[in-house]
Structures are given as C-alpha cells and as structure tokens.
C-alpha cells in the first residue's frame, strides 16, 4: 500500500452560482483534482449545520460549501444564513480540536468557472497537506468521527438551533454580513450551549 494519499472532499453547491460555475468549468475543459463529490442544493441557505459535520463524520477529510457572492444570492440572503451555519461548524470543529481549514465556504458566480477551479484546486491541496482526518490534528481519526457524529446530533438539537436563530436575527437586524461579524454573533449566541453540550463528548 504505497498509494499516494488522495483526500475525500464533499461539496454542497448551490444550484444557481457554484453548481453552475462547476458546470461551466467543465464546458471550458478546465481541469482540477478529482477529489470533490457534489451534493446539489437549491441554495446554500438550505445548509443545515449538521450536514458538514455529518460529511466529516461519514469519512470526508474536507467539506466545501459553494454559493453565490454576497449580495448575489438567488434567494436574496440565503448565503448569509449559510455563513451563520458555517460559523457554528467552525466553532464546533475548534471545540473538538479539528483543523478549521477542513471546512471551507466560498463563492463563485455562474460566470466564474475558472474561479471555481481555483478554489477547488487550492482546497484540495490544503486538505492533502492536512492529511486524513486526525493526522494534522494528531488524534485518532475514528474517535474524531464519533465526536463529529455527536456534534452533528447536537447541531440538530433545539438548544444550538435556538442560538443560531438568534444569531441570524441579529445579523438581519444589524445588516453587517461580514464573516467576522457573523462569526462573532454565532459565538455570542451559541458558545454557552456549545460548551455545555460539547463537554459531554469532549475527549
């Protein structure tokens, strides 16, 4: 078994921008590493915070979420809500002790096939460098996946989701859709519940 490590990457792409960009990359014959597997959604707003966690729990080494550029969401503000979910995922990864770079949310418009290729190529490289889940973390991969499954379960739970609702509400009210602002809101609203819940399955 002297095979070169080939990371497993799962992507959630929105129908209108990133999925279209991926198609147009194909039409233009732009080449990129064959590691990505795609789940199409109508909007990144559909992204349940548990999906990326489930993806990692089920064997992915990296998760990519691709949507429309800020301000260009086909459904007005779905990608902002996706950022809320994404922030929670990052919080949970940190809590478990998983490299936050294993989860990426990025944008490519329908006209940006080459940009999509750039993003995926760089992300694949990144995940290759991190290695299989657990390697960069210096932890047992299987154990991490069990913790991720538990984290996904709690991301479907009422406590955490109520925190996300509050974060989303404040985001809409405040009108600051920057990643840092949204991450701040999610941290404020969810950290307490997270600390409690995650404590139960922390290593």
């Amino acid at each position: 078994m002297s095979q070169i490590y080939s990371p497993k990457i799962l992507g959630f792409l929105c129908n209108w921008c990133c999925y279209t960009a991926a198609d147009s990359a194909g039409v233009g014959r732009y080449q990129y590493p064959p590691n990505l597997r795609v789940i199409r959604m109508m909007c990144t707003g559909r992204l349940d915070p548990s999906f990326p966690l489930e993806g990692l729990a089920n064997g992915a080494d990296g998760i990519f979420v691709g949507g429309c550029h800020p301000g260009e969401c086909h459904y007005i503000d779905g990608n902002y809500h996706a950022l809320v979910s994404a922030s929670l995922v990052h919080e949970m990864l940190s809590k478990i002790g998983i490299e936050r770079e294993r989860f990426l949310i990025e944008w490519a418009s329908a006209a940006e096939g080459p940009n999509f290729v750039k993003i995926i190529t760089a992300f694949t490289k990144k995940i290759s460098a991190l290695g299989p889940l657990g390697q960069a973390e210096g932890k047992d991969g299987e154990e991490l996946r069990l913790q991720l499954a538990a984290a996904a379960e709690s991301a479907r739970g009422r406590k955490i989701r109520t925190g996300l609702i509050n974060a989303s509400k404040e985001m809409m009210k405040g009108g600051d859709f920057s990643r840092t602002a949204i991450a701040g809101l999610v941290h404020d609203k969810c950290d307490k519940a997270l600390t409690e819940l995650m404590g139960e399955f922390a290593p």
Partner: protein
Amino acid sequence: MHTPVSNPSALQTVGSVLVVGGGVAGVQAALDLTELGYKVHLIEKSGAIGGVMARLDKTFPTNDCSLCILAPKLVEAGRDPNIEILTLSELVDLTGEPGSFTATVRKQPRYIDEEICTGCGQCTLYCLKQIGNDFNENLEHSQAAHIDYAQAVPTSYYIDAKACLRLNHDTCGLCASVCQAKAIRFDDTEKVIDIPVGAVVLAPGFGRVSDEVMARYGLGQFEDVVTAFEHERLMCASGPTGGEIVRISDRKHPKKIAFLQCIGSRDENCGNNYCSSVCCMYAIKQATLAREHDPECEITLFYMDVRTHGKGFDAARERAVREGNFRVIYARPPKVEDVFGGGLLLTWATEDGKHHSEKFDLVVLSQGLEAPDGAEDLARSAGIDLNPYLFAQTSIYTPLATSRPGVYVIGAFQGPKDIPDSVTQAGGAAALCAGQLAPARGTNTIKASFPEERDIAGEEVRIGVFVCHCGINIGGVVKVPSVAEYAKTLPHVVYATDNLYSCSQDTQRLLVETIHKHRLNRLVVAACTPRTHEPLFQTTLREAGLNRSLFEMANIRDQCSWVHMHEPEAATEKAKDAVRMAVAKAAHLTALAEQQLPVTPSALVVGGGLAGMTAAMTIAEQGFEVTLVEREKELGGRVKLLTADRFGRDPRKAVAELIAKVKAHPKITVHTKGTVAAVSGYVGNFTTTLDTGNGSVVVNHGVAAIATGGRPYEPKQYHYGESPKIVTQLELEKKLAATSQPLAKNTKQVVMIQCVGSRGEDLSYCSRVCCGQALKNSLRLKKLRPELGITVLYRDMRAYGFLEDDYRAAREAGVIFTRYQVEQKPEVIPGKGGAVAVRYHDPLLAETVEVDADLLVLSVGIVPEDPTALARMLKVPVTAEKFFLEAHVKLQPVDLPVDGTYVCGLAHSPRSMDETIAQAQAAAGRACHPLARGSITPAPIVSKVDPELCIGCGACESFCPYKAIEIYKEAKSRKARTLTASCKGCGICAARCPTMAIDMGRFTLDGIMAQIKAFGQGVS
C-alpha cells in the same frame, strides 16, 4: 394525389405557421411558435430534422457537445402535439395573403410508415443496396433503407428511392419480409398537400461551396485534403471512424495538420465575395479538438484575417491558440500540391513579401457557406426576392422580413451566420408571426396530455439507472459500462444500463418502455447536468406515468469526465460515487403535487434605445401591456449618434418613426428619466419600483426584458482631445451629416486607427461594429471627395458577412489598409497648431512610415452601461466584461438564467443595428412565452411543515425571503404553514427550524443524509 384545402375564409386569420427547414433555426422557431400559441407545420427536405448542427461534433466557443444540446430540442419538437413534422418535403407554392396563405407542399414518399416503424433497424441490416452515408459526408456506406443518424427525429427509417432495388428493378424486397412491424410501403406515393397558414418562416439553412471551387485546393485529387465538414465527422464519436482523426489515405493519425481558411469565401473568382462568418470559429474549434485527439500533432491555421468577433470569441480563440500551441499564419496558400515522397505541399507568401513552403499530412479546407441549394426555386415558390448572392433580401430595419409580407426569413438563408444568431432570429421571427397572427392565437393548438400518474405510495422502491456515454464526451474518459455494472449492485436498483446518447428520441422511448417493463418508480440518469437536461427526462417520466419529482441526475460529464480528462481511473471512481449518491437520494424521492400560478400578462422593458423600443413594440404587437422605462429624457438611445447606414439611408429617420410608434401604441406606457429602484417576485409575478421624473411608480409585470445598452468608449490614447483633427468615428459621422462643408477644405489625408480601446486595450473584447463603421465612413468620405487619401490601420478587418462587399468597395475606391501588430501599435505625434502625424510600421515596405493626417479617426469600442445594480436586483450574472450573461450561449442566447428575464442589444454584447433589432424581437418573443401560456408551473420543491413537530416559534416566518411561510393559530397553539404559491424552495426555513419540523421537496433531510452516507461508503 392532391388534397383539397379546407378553404378558410379570406378574412379569417389562421393560427398556424409554416416553417420551412428543420435545422436548429427552424426547430427553434417551431418550438417558440407553439409556446406562443400557434400550430406549426415544419417541413424538412431531408429525412430527419436537425440540419447541420446535428452533424457537428462540438460547438465553438465552449466545445459543448453539439448533438447533446440539440437533441433535447429535437425530441421536444418530435413530441409536441402542435408541431407537425413533414420530412422529404418542400414548398412548391404559396398563395393568398398574410394571415391567410395556402402553402402547397410536395412530400416525397418514405416507403416506410413513420407511424408504425419502431426504429429497430432490421431493414438496414438486411438491405442489399449500399449507398454513400450522406450524414457522415460519404466517408462510409449506408444502405438504401436507412436512418440518417441514430438520434434522428422522427425516429423512423426510410428508403432511398433512387437506390432501392425493389423500387427500381422490382427485385429484393428483403426489408419488407424482415420488418416485424410491417411498416414497409413500396406503394407509397408522392403527395401534394395544401396547408392553410397565417405566416411562413423560411429557414432552409445554407448550401456549401461547390467541389469545383475546392478542387483548386486538391479536393478530390488528394485523399488527405478534406473539407471541414468531413473533418467534423472524423472528430465525432458517432462518425465513420468512431472519433479517430485519421488520414483517409493510410488511416494513420496525421502529425501535421493545416487549416486553410476562406475556401470559397471572400473570393471573387467563385462569385462569393462575402465572408462566411463562421469558418474562423469552427477552424479554431476543430484545431482544439485535433489537439485533444493528439497532444503531439503540429497544427497550423492559415488566416487572411482572424474574424472572431462574437461574444467571448476572441478570448476563447486566444486561449485555444495558447493552450493548443497552434501556429497562426496570416497568408492564403493558393493551392495544394502533391510532392514526391508523400505529403501535401503548401506554398504561401507572408505580408512581408517572403515566400515559404512546407509539407503537411492533412489539409482541412474551411469550406464557406453559400445560399442553400434550390434558393431560387424556393424564392419563386415563396414569392420573395433574393440578393445578388442568392440569400434572402432583407433590410437593416426589418432584418427578418422578406420582400413578401407575412413571409419571414431566419438563419443562414438571411446571410451566413452562426448558431446563436440563428437561434436568436428564430425567436424573433416567432415573435413577428405571433404579432401578425395575434387574433388567432390558440385557435389551432391543442394541449399536450400525459397519462394519469401512477400512485407509487405503496410500492417498494424500484430504481432504474441509465449511464450515458454522451458519444465520447463521457465514454472517452469514464468507463461507462463498468459504472452501469456497478449501479446494478446498489440497493433498490432493479435495472441499470448504458446508452450512447441518453437524450435522443429513441432513448426516451426506451426509457418509457423500461419503466413499464421493470415497473420502475424512481429514475436516475448519470449523464450531463440537471441544469440543462432535467426537464427533458422529467417529461419522459410523465409520459411513463410517473411524477416528475421521482427523478435524479448524476453529473458525470460537466463535473467529471470533462474536468478530469487525463485521469480516467479517478474519473470512473468519481462517476461511481456520483451514481451511488444519486441512487441513495432517489430512494427517498416521493411524488410531489404540482401547482399552477397565474401570470401577470404584461412586460417591463428596461432601456428605451433601439433594442428596448423594438422589444416593447414586438411585445405590444402580440397584445400584451408593456412598461418601457428609459433613463434619459428622450427615447432613442445611442443609435441616434449614427447618421447613415451602409446603404446611405439615415437611421435617425427610422428611429424617429419607431419613437413615434412606441409613444402612440395603446399598450405601451413610457417612463422617461426613470430607473429601476427595486425588483421583487419571480417569473409571472414581478413587482418593480421605478424612480421616474414624476416620482416613484410601482409596476406589476410577468416578465422583464433588459436593454440597458452601451456607450462609446472614451479614448485617452492617441492624443485624443488634444487636437480638433483627432476625432472618433461617431464624431466623424456627425461631421459627415452636416449639410455644409462636412470636411475642412484642405483635408487631403485621413488616417483611421482600429481597435481603439478594444481587443485587449481597456476592453478585453472585440467591439464587432467598428470595422464595418470604418469601412462605411471611408466610403462616405471617398464619395464626398474621391481624391482624398485614406489609410486604415487595423489588426484584423472584421468585415463579416456581406460587409465584405464594403471592404472590397473601399479597396477599389483606393482606401489603403495596413495591418498593425498589437505589440507595435501606431504612434500619434501631435505637432504645432493642432497638426497630427501618425507613425506606423508598414509590413509591405518593412519600414516605419510617417504621414501627416489632416484628420485622424479613432474607431473606438463599445462599453456596456454598468449592469451591476440591475443585475443584483434581478439576481442574474454578468460577465467579467460587464455584459449580461445569457442562460446558454448557443441555444438560449437572449434568456437570462433567471426565469422570466431576457436581454437584448448592447447590454448583451456589441452588435450592429440589424442584429440588435433581430435580437430585441427575439427577446420580445421569448418574453411572451409565459405571458401567452397564462400560468406557470414552478418546480414543486417547496417547504413543508410537520405540525406535530412545529412549536410555532416563528423563526421560519421571520427569515423567509418571500414571506412564503406564516404562523397561524390552531386550537390555541401556534403553527407554521407554507404558502406554496410563494415558496421558491431555498430551504432557509428548514436550516433554521429549531425542531427540524420543516423539510424541502426533493431536497429532503433524509435524501441529503442518504447522499452523505452514500458518499462515505466509498467504492469497494
């Protein structure tokens, strides 16, 4: 046999249209017409519709698979109950008046009953008489009993009457004995049919430059000189060599290929002075494909000028030349010679006067387009005028109207043109017919009906998987049969197979049969992308009595074989993963109820220039209300800056007439000094707020057409603005229109510089119209003062189509044309008192020349008006160059990706007046589809609340961007419910619901979780 007419009253408008020609233009016109509510009789002279596009392997600039994007349209036309396809048919007479014509059509016998033939192919198998396979350019044989190509519509075989042994010698007849369906009819006869129609659309396509002309380049004499059409078939997986580019002489792969351009085009010797407008592009495409086939092969392209003037074409060419490592030579080798020791010798002279010669393995002739065979007969039958080149005569201001009212022309018969322009014209002609026949809309059409849906609720899950080769698009990389075999091992899969082309009509029939035979209740197609092909397969599902939501696609082409072309193993693994994930999701699909939403029967047109006004008129003429909003005080736009067209008429007069018509039209409301402030809603039900001179106005409309236009580029280079002697072409136009002394008395020498701002200066693209404008203005100047010296400094003279006539006329009038290289641009030296000298390299003299210019004219490019704000409001994409990005560059050239929005004019890309008018008419035609239909059936992907789980917190209600979910009170408890008519299916509510009480149609929690789990299972 002569069927009598049902004699319609002379005053009665007939709600039917005759479309002559079943190529992409004719098929598109037919589909657009039925959408608009008209019955179509589509007549095609060959045995199947599809035309030349069906014979192409790929299409420029995306190298998209040609048949793959065409086939869904052919299938749609074949199954549309309002399109009657008559093959082997031609128009022989047209009598009557617009609105009430009688078209006399002669239909040759097929000798095989179309209705009964199952397309099994037994007749071909047993047919003893070989004939050339015309579809494959006679590079292989076919039989007298045959079908043109596997995906042909109608999917029925026919017998070549000239070749058949039974028909000619009364022997054989084997086909009749082996035909299980008993479809052979040796007693079939020619029929002459009179068809009452209200209007006629001519789309007979193009003819080809004769073999005689090409014989000069060795065609016929040397086996390894091939036409581009032959080369196209050699490239194609379903072609005579199975997609191997080989020399005819020795079946070896050529190591050195030359493409010769302008064969039979721009050539007075053969009478074709015009430019064929498409060869530059298809040669680039073929060179790119030849490179894909052989990374080592040397590829050379010989050009006179590189005319890649279409949207995104220059960029695609540059990338192709760079990545394909092509050698591009500006020269026209006059002949091909055979030399001792094999190979084909080309000799040419470059612009510096040097002579060169080289041997090549394969020479591809970029054969030009001619008027279609029989153009004169058709013109006589239809009663229309032709131009001197035997193309249909049209005018700049009515580009789609022939000389006979009620008879329209589209596609290459209107002038050589590419697929997007042909499709555009098809949409435009359909709109004009719909306007002309408005009173008869819907009088001759019937509604498509589907069998009753099977209730699958109690059934076990039975999934069928079809894996597509897509010719070699998928099959050339992914091991398709092994993917199909793998699919058979997946849970719930009861049937799996592979197909050459899943989208062809015969495969649709096979799908329906398979669904019945194996009692499938979910279907997975692993092929291209659901974005383009899902509707086709969903219609097939409905024909098989299944709800359209029971369908899932695995994208193994656009997101697999095409992006991992050099990694067949990894691509095959990825395809298997994609199929496994799709099957896992499919198992969770359920039948979903459809909903019908009403459409507000009116349109908003943004922009009151030539495009916007034309679109508004064309929509209003079809009987729908239009709101036209223009930013400026007056209608008219930039076209008012033009003072003459190439025939010397004043466009401003035509525009003034159009403005008057728009203002007077009872169905058009004009808002000047108006801009779009906000847009909400979706196709059928948009609400737009306009800021106008008279305050804010709210408009409800079903569709929107964008025609925000462009403006001239403002040059900073070449010392513009520093001397009155330096002007732009538009400023020159203004001078030339002045009644007294348009030119200063002492003006002796004029210099024009092309591509100012365009093609990589500030604008990365070609502005398309500037070459024609320079030619037109040169001729105007020469007419005014024949002794005037004029030098045009250019990169490529892009005098496409009939503009080539102007190019020749200008040269004959003494205008000097000198090519400059982009790395050695002309230099302008300002002198005292506004004097201007221009210094440039003359390649003929091989030295730098300096002339004093009494007038320096800069051919400036076109800049689109900034689309950002409007694009964001409509949620439509724009290109890096700031043009609106159409839904599909080939086949949906005026649709924007958001349903119910369309684009035309300079907001789409630079284009001339006649092209703008045709495109605006097309946008108007497409925009009227939802309006004419009166209702829309959105995808049933809406959210659903489980009242058992709902706690009535109202988070969903507060986040829904469409107010499509509301809280209601029931027995003292609060619950949420979806207003399905407003729900767009984004799923924000589901992602935020604290109790996971909300789920989405087709994108269910269980479905996505199943995909994730299947992802994790990996391929063992």
